[in-house]
Every structure is written in C-alpha cells, then in structure tokens.
C-alpha cells in the first residue's frame, strides 16, 4: 500500500474510534437529560424536601449534601495531597520509605470504592461512634482520592523545570523557600487542573458514601457531623430501596440534576483555574 493511502486509512480508522467514543458518551448524556431534565428543573423537585412514602418529593437536602461533601473533602484532601506530593517530589530522598509510600498508593488506587466505604464505616461510623455523617464520608472520600490526587499533584510539581530550583537555591534560598516561592506557584495551574477531576468523582461517588454519610434525610444538613444524603447515593437508594410510588422520576430527575451539577462545578473550577493561570503568567 502506498504511503498516502495508508495514511488516509489510518486517519479514517482513528476517526471512527474517536467518533464511537463520542457517540457512546453522547448517547448516555442525552438519555439522562431527556429522561430527567423536566423533573430536575421543577422547583418542587430541586427546592423541595424528599418524601418517605408519598409521591412528589424533592431533593434539596441531597443537593446541599453533595456540595457540602465536595467542599469538606477538598478542604481535607487538598492540603494532605499537596503536602504529601511536595514531600515526595521536593524533599524525599529515593529510598525504602518512598518506595513503600508509592507501593501503598498504587495498591490503594486499585481498590474498589466499596472497600473504602466499608473501611470508612468500620472506622469512623462504628469504631469512633460518629454514626452516619458528612465528615465520615468526606474522610472516606479523601482516602479514596488520595492516590489520584497525589499523583497528579506530583506530576504538576515535576513539570517545574529543575533550573528554577537551581536558580533559587543558588541565590541563597533554602529548599523550603524555593518550594514555597518558586515551585508551588509555578505548578499552581497544574495543581488546579489536578484538583478539578476528583471533584467530579466525589460528586458521582456512591459506593464509598452509602455506608458513611447516610442515604436518606429530610432536613438540610448543617454541621459536618450531621447525617446527610448526597445525590449520587440517594439515586441508588431511590432506585433500590425507596417506597415512594414516583421513585422512577426521582431517579431520572436526580441523575439529570447530578449531571448538570458536575458540569457546572467543572466549568467553574476550570474558569477559576484559567483566571489564576492568566494572573500568574502576567508576572507580578
């Protein structure tokens, strides 16, 4: 086959693969939206309280639970991951301890999320007697996300050229000052991007939270130790356990709403990341 033909064929093949992926994704998104969008944006649904046995319940406490859970998880895991990533990439000398940490992280990354859920329940809810609550869910999700979060933060730090570090150290800066004033600011856009992806995962995670935060509530959770019911878990609950006659529309509406929420949070995080990036590139 001549060079030009084979190139065209390759282009076509890869185009088909690309198109297939988009098609599958598009199909799912359209299905979810078509089925649920009408319910999702009914004020009585997204501003209402859920019902236990009657039809017509809403999901406002679940929306709040989800947002609360995302915020709490980020507050816990961001400093933890960035701190650990800074240690691994800037301070640690390659040795047994670092190898052990990496091995543990890789093992952690392969565990199914239900294992984290059961672990969180055993430790936080039962052993520490916290019961179902937001903070138990947030801690569980922080552990769940640690490997991904840490790895991507570390990658962002590794992308900072070694020459920046050398320049700073050669001017008489300590390693910590170099990390604080040069490495982290330069890696910030990457770190922000690294934090966006887990947000989607936290919002959509159900297995890790059904045993830790709770599944059904009627009032909006206020404190981190309140029982909550994040939307993703509630969708599962409504589908499999709930006794409301209109559970089908609760599930569809909830799914569409969750999709829209993830999208909004995603776009918001990206916008903030971009803004930060522009600011840091403008100098100052």
């Amino acid at each position: 086959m001549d060079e030009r033909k084979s190139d065209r064929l390759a282009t076509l093949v890869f185009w088909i693969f690309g198109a297939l992926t988009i098609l599958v994704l598009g199909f799912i998104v359209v299905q979810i939206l078509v089925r649920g969008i009408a319910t999702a944006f009914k004020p009585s649904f997204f501003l209402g309280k859920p019902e236990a046995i009657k039809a017509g319940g809403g999901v406002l406490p679940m929306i709040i639970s989800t947002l609360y859970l995302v915020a709490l998880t980020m507050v816990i895991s961001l400093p933890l991951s960035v701190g650990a990533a800074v240690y691994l990439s800037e301070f640690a000398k390659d040795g047994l301890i670092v190898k052990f940490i990496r091995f543990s992280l890789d093992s952690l990354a392969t565990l199914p999320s239900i294992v984290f859920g059961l672990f969180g329940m055993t430790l936080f809810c039962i052993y520490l007697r916290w019961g179902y609550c937001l903070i138990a869910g947030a801690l569980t999700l922080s552990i769940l996300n640690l490997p991904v979060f840490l790895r991507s933060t570390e990658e962002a730090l590794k992308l900072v050229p070694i020459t920046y570090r050398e320049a700073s150290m050669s001017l008489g800066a300590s390693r910590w000052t170099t990390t604080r004033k040069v490495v982290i600011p330069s890696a910030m856009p990457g770190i922000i991007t690294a934090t966006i992806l887990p947000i989607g995962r936290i919002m959509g995670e159900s297995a890790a939270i059904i045993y830790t935060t709770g599944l059904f509530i009627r009032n909006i959770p206020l404190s981190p130790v309140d029982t909550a019911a994040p939307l993703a878990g509630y969708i599962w609950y409504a589908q499999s356990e709930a006794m409301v006659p209109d559970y089908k529309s609760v599930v569809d509406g909830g799914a569409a709403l969750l999709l829209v929420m993830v999208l909004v949070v995603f776009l918001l995080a990206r916008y903030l990341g971009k803004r930060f990036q522009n600011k840091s590139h403008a100098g100052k």
Partner: protein
Amino acid sequence: MMEKKIAIDSLNMNYGSFRAIEDVTLDILSRHITALIGPSGCGKSTLIRCLNRMNDLIDGVRVEGRVLLDGDNIYEPTYDAITLRRRVGMVFQRPNPFPKSIYENVAYGPKLTGMRGKDELDYIVEESLKKAALWDEVKTNLRESGLNLSGGQQQRLCIARVIAVQPEVILFDEPCSAIDPVATQLIEDLMAELKKNYTIVIVTHNMQQAARISDYTAFMLVERQGEPGRMIEYGDTNAMFTNPKDERTERYITGRFG
C-alpha cells in the same frame, strides 16, 4: 596585590561510586576572571558547582578535599550553604529567569534576606539591572514577565538577579552557550566590567572566549574514558595560549582534539 579569594585544595568529587574529578588544586584570585576550559565531560562544570555547593542538591554526591573561601573551608559540616551561596552567586548555562516579572526576578534575592521596603528594593533592582547592562532595555516594562525577554536579555536578567544579592564571587557556567554571538559580545563586555568588583570564574567550551576575557585559565581533561577529570595546566591566560607548558594543553588549544 594578588589576593587569593578561593583556594581549591586536593579536591575529589564522586557521584556514588563514580569519581568525576580528582585531585584538583587551584587558586582563584580576587577580582580577576579565571576560565575553566576543556573538552565536554572533563568535569569543568562539576568543578565550578563545587564552589557554591550546588552539587549538594544531587543525591549521592561526595566531596573530598577542601575549598577555602577567604580561608574558611566551605565543606566543613558547620559551614552554612545558604550563606555561602549568597557570597558565591551563579549564572547558569541556559538562562533561567523565574516565571515572574523582571522586577520580581531581581528582587527575589534581596527579599530572601528580609529586604521589604519599596524604596530600598526599587533602588537595588535599578542598580542591579544597570550593572547588568539591561536597565535601558527594560526600565519601562519592569512588570512584564522575565520569560518574554530574548535569550541574551534573559541571561543578563539572571546576572542582575545575582548582582542584587551582592555576592563576592560570580560563577558563570557556560553562560553564552545558549545565546547568539551579539548577545555573547554584550555579556563578555559585561564580565570585563564586573571583574572590577567581583571575582569571576567562568566555564566555557569556547577557547577563544577564554582567551579574550580571562586573566587565568585552567585546563581540565579526562585522559581515558571512565577516568576522573584532572587539571592538566593552570596559569596566566596569555602565557597558556601562546606557550602552553603541557603537550596535552597545546594539542587541545590548537584544536587537535576536544
């Protein structure tokens, strides 16, 4: 008066089990330019990085022997590397300004030592940029990113950044290898000016450059592959380039290898 600024005394440097340089003894005179020349891989960059302990940053580096700065051994365990690097600044092979504004690049060092006052910082930034012959080109856009400058300008920004720390010695590690001839000329002129106030050591692979700008030259060589780099000859630059004592030096500077 020939004042010794740095005395390198029987210095060996090892990366793990590999010995990179061996038994280097060399005096660096105050307010003169000393050039380190030699073929690639001869250990000249390694040697210059021993003078401000930049090699400390690499795992598995072990140094034996002494490097005396004004008579004090910088490899004494009690010697503080941070203080050392403020006294012995460095300009690198590739210009490496921070992704910050021109102003912040120059102010970085002074701020480390706790300088905060705006007037004070403004003054030192302006003075440093002037000494680095960059002020006229950047005085209207100090707030712009240092990365937007041309390569030669970036290298002068890095020189200004070093000057702002007010070091006594400035190490140049092949400072012109990544910039064009016109910018190289500017930097060479600048060095000639800087040696009035600073002790300068420059690593260069360019023998003409060493001959043009330096007062003293040290020639280093790895004789057989796998052996450490050793210093072959050291002396007055003119004498070495017109009448080298060692046959290996002669072969190198006449371009027969390297």
